């Protein structure tokens, strides 16, 4: 352990582990990552983990039981800075796609019946900032390795990283793709924060919105455009909230009145 280095902990709550795995998948940067800080906790990668004071806590996953909420509060109390990584942590992910909490009770019954879990008390999945203050958000499903290491380097230097304020469409243009909306395909590029490099449109497939909403997305305009193209209100709503859970729901509130 090095006194000069900052203390970092990585934690995973409910999700697919894709954000921590994106870090492990960064073979060229992985050893540097472990050398650049004291990695105090990263249970996906190592077994000598501890619950000490942290300079930076990185949290993946949504909160889906009371025990996780308590654990998250504990991490917050011993961390100077807390960063949500990935869509589940930032927005609740697909498991918080806004199907309604009454619906959740019924859906739980459908999957587990009257099961009783002695070790955990399940609740509907929510993003972590419902339970604890979050200092910075790195979105994506999963996060992009380059964007993550860009942010992490800033954190190590005590700086706050910034993301460009444009949608997937900008990155899509740079890759000289044909616009899928012009081909009447339901693409969420105009609403979705950039950072992925317009991966899906570059494969001739529509953006599914997995980076969460862009800050100043013009939801009304996209909604009206899709309606004009003949998509049903049901279809548009379903696609809007599929990946971005609570994020898009918040942004959609303005137009929900008119739906």
């Amino acid at each position, binding site marked *: 352990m090095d006194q000069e280095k900052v203390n970092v902990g990585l934690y995973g709550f409910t999700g*697919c582990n894709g954000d921590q795995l994106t870090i492990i998948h960064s*073979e060229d940067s992985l050893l540097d990552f472990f050398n650049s800080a004291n990695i105090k906790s990263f*249970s996906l990668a190592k077994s000598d983990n501890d619950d000490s004071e942290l300079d930076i806590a990185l949290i993946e996953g949504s909160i889906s039981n009371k025990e996780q909420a308590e654990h998250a509060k504990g991490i917050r109390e011993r961390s100077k800075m807390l960063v949500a990584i990935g869509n589940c942590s930032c927005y609740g992910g697909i498991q918080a796609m806004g199907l309604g909490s009454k619906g959740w009770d019924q859906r739980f019954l459908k*999957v587990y019946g009257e099961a009783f879990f002695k070790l955990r008390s399940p609740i509907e999945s929510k993003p972590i900032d419902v339970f604890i203050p979050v200092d910075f958000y790195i979105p994506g499903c999963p996060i992009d390795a380059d964007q993550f290491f860009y942010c992490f380097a800033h954190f190590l230097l005590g700086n706050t990283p910034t993301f460009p304020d444009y949608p997937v469409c900008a990155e899509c243009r740079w890759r000289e793709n044909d616009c899928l909306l012009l081909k009447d395909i339901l693409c969420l590029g105009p609403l979705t924060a950039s950072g992925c490099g317009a991966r*899906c449109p570059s494969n001739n*497939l529509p953006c599914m919105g997995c980076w969460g909403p862009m800050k100043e997305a013009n939801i009304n305009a996209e909604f009206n455009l899709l309606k004009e193209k003949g998509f049903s209100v049901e279809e548009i709503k379903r696609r809007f909230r*599929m990946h971005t859970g609570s994020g898009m729901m918040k942004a959609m509130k303005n137009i929900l009145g008119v739906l």
Partner: protein
Amino acid sequence: MREIVVEPLSRVEGEGGITIQIDGKRIKDVCFNILEGTRLIETLVVGKTPVESVSIACRICAICTLSHRYAALRGLEKALGIEVPPKVHWMRTLMHLGECLESHSLHVYVLALPDFLGYPSAIAMADKYGKDVMKALALKKFANHIMEVTSGRMIHGENPTVGGFGRYPERDVLLDIKKQAIEMMDFAIHGVNLVAGLDFPSSFETDTLFMCCESYEENYCLVGDHIRISNSEVVEIEEYKKLTNENIVSHATAKHCVYNGKPYTVGAIARINNLGERLKNQSGKLYKKYWNDRWLKNPLFNNLAQAIEIVWALEQIPSVVDNILKIKEEPEIVQPTQKDGEGVGAVEAPRGTLYHHYRIRDGLIEDANFVIPTGQNLEDCEKYMRKAVEGLLNQDTDDETIRLQCEMIARAYDPCISCSTHMVKIEHKLACG
């Protein structure tokens, strides 16, 4: 009475733990606790289009994302009356081999090996085993590259879609994959010898059943429409519920599976035990050199089985790439021929047989059921842990050794806890089929 608790269980995907209760010299209970939060994915795909549901279902797990995608595509395409052309089949084979390589190299070298060599992590092994760690990471990087090239992203790529692919990779990129696969072979063989040299404890050895997918061709394979069981039974995948019999236990948010009231094992060890005779070339030689009847009784051999499958996967890649390139024309995405239907898809995820079952009405998912490998292995895993603890208690072993041996058994199954939790479901009246 005393309790040994491991929580969280590290170096596995997802949130799990082990509780061992001991009364004097007698074991009271051993539980592999699945603590991962519930996501209710099977209910999230209901009311979605097939393409949307594939985008949701692959996110069950980041390690086996392409196996989930592949199983979903096979089930959905049966339901929609879609038959994909050969180029699509070979592209899917390549992506699936890439994932098998990625997952196995992660598990064998990064997650499991540190236990056997006495380290907390693969990173900590770097001083003494630097060369092997770097080569293992290079192999994993290559595997991730295959996943990125075929699926559009290392994790949750959307390129493999219902009816085909959005885009096909460039010829040069595929030829480079072929070249690298050949170059990686020496290290993969070295890896098998390295793992074969480890000391696998034997005190808990006992018989069990093994299940895996089998295709109609007589090859070693990772997909198929029927299941081969080690007692020589062969069952169509449509009858998967008869094989898996999911049930709920209070210490796990994943369901346990039994066949005819008995636990069974899926995964690389099941595939090699059931189909190993079909391995040819280098993987065939290694199988003949290292396989013995302890493999039928000891789950730790799953580590060696995965190391051999790494060699097998690398052997397959050159001809699969050739098969993709042989077909010059890039097929359009095949459209559904029907709006209503039902289908079961099964593939071998790196850690065992994965079933996706869909019923579609008027173009939207009406019901879905998924059965995943880790849930199928939980009963057997607990059986072996119990046997190990019994043996160690008779030898007056300390708690630390008991803890480590249980962790090694749990880890050998390569559990994928995210998967296991989100896939479970009790038998209910509306269930498919």
